[in-house]
C-alpha cells in the first residue's frame, strides 16, 4: 500500500504488452499475474487484461470474473491521493464509519478537478486493532485517529501539494 504507481495515461499499449509478455508467472496463475499488474500500474487496465487473455489463452470474461471477485483488484486507476479507512470490527467500534463519512465529505468539498484525484477505499482489518481506529493516507498509516486529527491529516496532504 505504499507504492507510487505509474501514471497509466503515460503508458503506451506496446509498453503494456511488453510488461505482460515479460511477466514470469508460474502455472499461468492468473491471480499472481494480476497482483503483478496491480503492483505496477496501480490497477488492472483493460488493455492489460486483454493482453493477459491473449497470453494465457483464456477469455476476457474469465479474467474479469477474477478481477471483480477480489476486493483488492481495481478496474480504475486510483486517484493520486488514496485514503484507505480500516472498517474492521474494532475500528468500527471506534467510529471508523464517521471517518469514512468525513473522508467523503472532504472529497466533495474540494474543487471539482481535485475531487478526481482523491480515491476513498475501505479495508477489513489490517491486524493492528490495538491502534484503532486507523487509516492510510497516501500510504502513510495513521493510528489512534479521531475526527480532529483525521481532518488535519487530510488537509495536510492536499495543501502540501498546492504549495508544490
Amino acid at each position, binding site marked *: 500500500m505504499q507504492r507510487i504507481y505509474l501514471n497509466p495515461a503515460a503508458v503506451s499499449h506496446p509498453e503494456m504488452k511488453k510488461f505482460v509478455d515479460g511477466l514470469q508467472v508460474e502455472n499461468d496463475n492468473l491471480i499472481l499475474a494480476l497482483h503483478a499488474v496491480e503492483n505496477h500500474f496501480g490497477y488492472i487496465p483493460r488493455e492489460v487484461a486483454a493482453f493477459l487473455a491473449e497470453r494465457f489463452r483464456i477469455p476476457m470474461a474469465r479474467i474479469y470474473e477474477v478481477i471483480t471477485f477480489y476486493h483488492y483488484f481495481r478496474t480504475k486507476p486510483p486517484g493520486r491521493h488514496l485514503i484507505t479507512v480500516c472498517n474492521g470490527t*474494532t475500528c468500527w467500534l471506534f467510529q471508523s464509519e464517521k471517518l469514512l463519512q468525513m473522508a467523503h465529505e472532504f472529497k466533495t468539498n474540494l474543487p471539482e478537478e481535485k475531487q478526481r484525484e482523491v480515491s476513498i477505499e475501505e479495508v477489513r482489518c489490517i491486524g*493492528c486493532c490495538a491502534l484503532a481506529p486507523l487509516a492510510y493516507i497516501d500510504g502513510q498509516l495513521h*493510528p489512534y485517529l479521531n475526527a480532529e486529527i483525521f481532518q488535519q491529516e487530510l488537509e495536510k496532504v492536499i495543501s502540501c501539494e498546492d504549495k508544490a
Partner: protein
Amino acid sequence: MKIRLNFDSNAIAAGAAYVGEALQRELGKTWQIIKVGTNGLSYADPQIEVEAEHLPAVIFGKLNAHNIAYLLEDFFQHGLFPREEFFRSGGCILGGRTFMKKRGGAITHILVSDTSLPLQDKNRAYVLSLLSRFFSPGQYAWALDFGFYNRGFAIEIFPQSEVYAGFSIEELPELFGLLSQGQGLAIHKRFSEPLQLRLVSKNCGRMSAESIEEALQLGGYDALQTSLKKLSPEAVISEVEKSGLRGRGGAGYPTALKWKLTRQEKNFPKYVICNADEGDPGAFMDRSLLESDPHRVLEGLILAGYAIGAEQGYFYIRAEYPLATQRIRRAVEEARQYGFLGKNILGSGFSFDVKVRLGAGAYVCGEETALIASLEGKRGSPVPRPPYPSQRGLYGKPTCINNVETLATIPEIILRGGDYFSTIGKGKSLGTKIFAVSGQIAKTQLVEVPMGMPLKILIYDICGGLPAGKQLKAVQTGGPSGGFVPASLLDIPLTYEDFLAIGSIIGSGGLIVLDESVNLAEFMLFYLNFNVDESCGKCAPCRIGGFQLRHLYQELLAGADAERQIAKIKRIAYAMKLASLCGLGKAACNPIFSSLHFFPEDYKLWAKKNISTVP
C-alpha cells in the same frame, strides 16, 4: 547489552521506526538493538525491552519523540528510572515480564503498581511520595502493567527481577522500609504466578524475526531435526494425536485425524497449505506469529508435509499483510539455505519445498475449498464437500490445510511430547490458545493461556478489564461467524465445548470486548454489511438471505415493529443456516441468534411510536 524493539506491523504503525533510529543513533555503539516481532503487548507500542547486567530488565512503552529524550538521559546514561516528564509525555514502564536470569544483590530499583480493578491511578501520587522517603529519585517508578490484575499492590525489585503482589495500601510503608534496609526476602510468600502460559508464542518478541540464526538459538528446527532422525511420519501423527490438538482456524477439527486421512490417500503428489488468510476482523494472532516467529510456522508446515507425505507446501497469506508476507518469504529463503527445505532434507530422504501465495481481499477465501480455488488462480468460490480437500484438493490432489497457529503449535508438541501438551487444558480442548483481545479493553494485547481458563480471568485479571468508566456488556467471539458472551456468563471456560453450548464459538481467537454503549442490533447490521460484501454469491440462501436480512435490520433500526421484524429475521436466518453451501453463509446467522437470545431488548429500543411498519 541488548534492546529489543517491537517491530511488527502494529509497532511500526505506532512509530517504532522513529524510535529505532533514535536508539541506533544514540546507543548503537554500545547496545545491540534487535528488531523483534511483537511481545504481544500491542497497546504499549512502540516499546523496548532492556537486557543488561547493570540495569533493571523492564519494558519502556508508548515511546515517542518527546519522551525518548528523558529515557536516553535518565535511564541509559545514569541508570535511573526516567523522571516524571517521561510519564507525562505519554511514556510508561511495564514490569513482570522479563526473560532475564534472576540475580542477587542489594536492591537498586523498585517498580510499584496498583493492580486493583477498576483501574485507576488514584493512589499513584501517595505511593510515589511514600517511596521517596525510603529511596532516592530514579530508583523507583510507577509501573503501568505487570500482566496481572486484582491482586492489590504489586512490586518488582531489581536486580532480582522478582515480583510480589497482594499488598494493601496500609502495608506499603512497612514493606518499603524493609526493602530499603535490604530485607526483601521476608516477603517471599507473596510471589505471584504468571497467568499466561506461552508455548506457541514463547519466542515472539524475543528474537529478530528476520534471522534464522536467532531462531536456531532458541530451538528453531529442533523438532524437525528430531522428527527426521527419530520419528516416522506415523510417529509424528501419533504424537500430535496424543496431544489432542484441534485446529485453531475456527472449526476445531482434530489435527491428527486430518493428517491421517490425507496420509491414507494413495494419490500423489499431495499438498499442504498454511491458511494465513486471517479474515476475522479484529483478530491478529496469525499476523503476530507470522511477523514474530515465521520459522516456527514454517517448521510446522514442513512437519505437516513430512507427516502426510507431501513434497510441496504453500502459504496463502492475505494481501493486507505485506510485512508478514515479506518475513515468511525471507524465512523460506533462509530455510532453503540452511537445508531445511529442498531435496533430501538433512539427509533424511524427505524432500519438501514451499511457495508463497497472496490472497486478494476476500474473506471467503479462508474457507478451504475457496482457498484452493484461489490458489489455483481462480475466483474463490467454495464447492460442496465431500469430496474433502484431504481426498481431492489443490489441482485435484489430496491436500491438507491448517491454520497458522495450528502449525506453529506442532514443533512444541514434538519437542515436549504430545502427552505433556494434553495435560494442559480441559475436556476436549487441550493445550494453549492464543487470543487477540481488543475493543473496549484497557490493555489490547495477545494472550496465550491454557484452554479452559475462564474468560473472565482473561478479560480482567490479564487485560485489566475495561477502560475506566466503561461497563462490560458482552464479548464477541468468533467474528462474523461467532456469537456473543454476555457479561452474566463471563465465567465460561475457554473451550470449544463450553462455547458451543451457549451458541457461540471460540473461533480463531479474536475477542472483542463490547461496553454498554454498543447496541447489538446495530452491531449486527455492521456484520450483515460485512457478510453481504463478502458473500461469493454462488448460492441463493447466502446471497439473497444476507441481502434480505440486512434490509430487515435497516428497517428495524429505522423504527419498524420489532416483533414482526424479529419473526422475519428468524425465519430467514434459519433458512440461510440450513441451506447455505459453505461455512460463510451457514455461520453468518450465528451472531444473529446469539444477539437475539441474550439481548432481545436491543432490538426493541428502536421501535418508533405509532409506526408499525416502515414503507
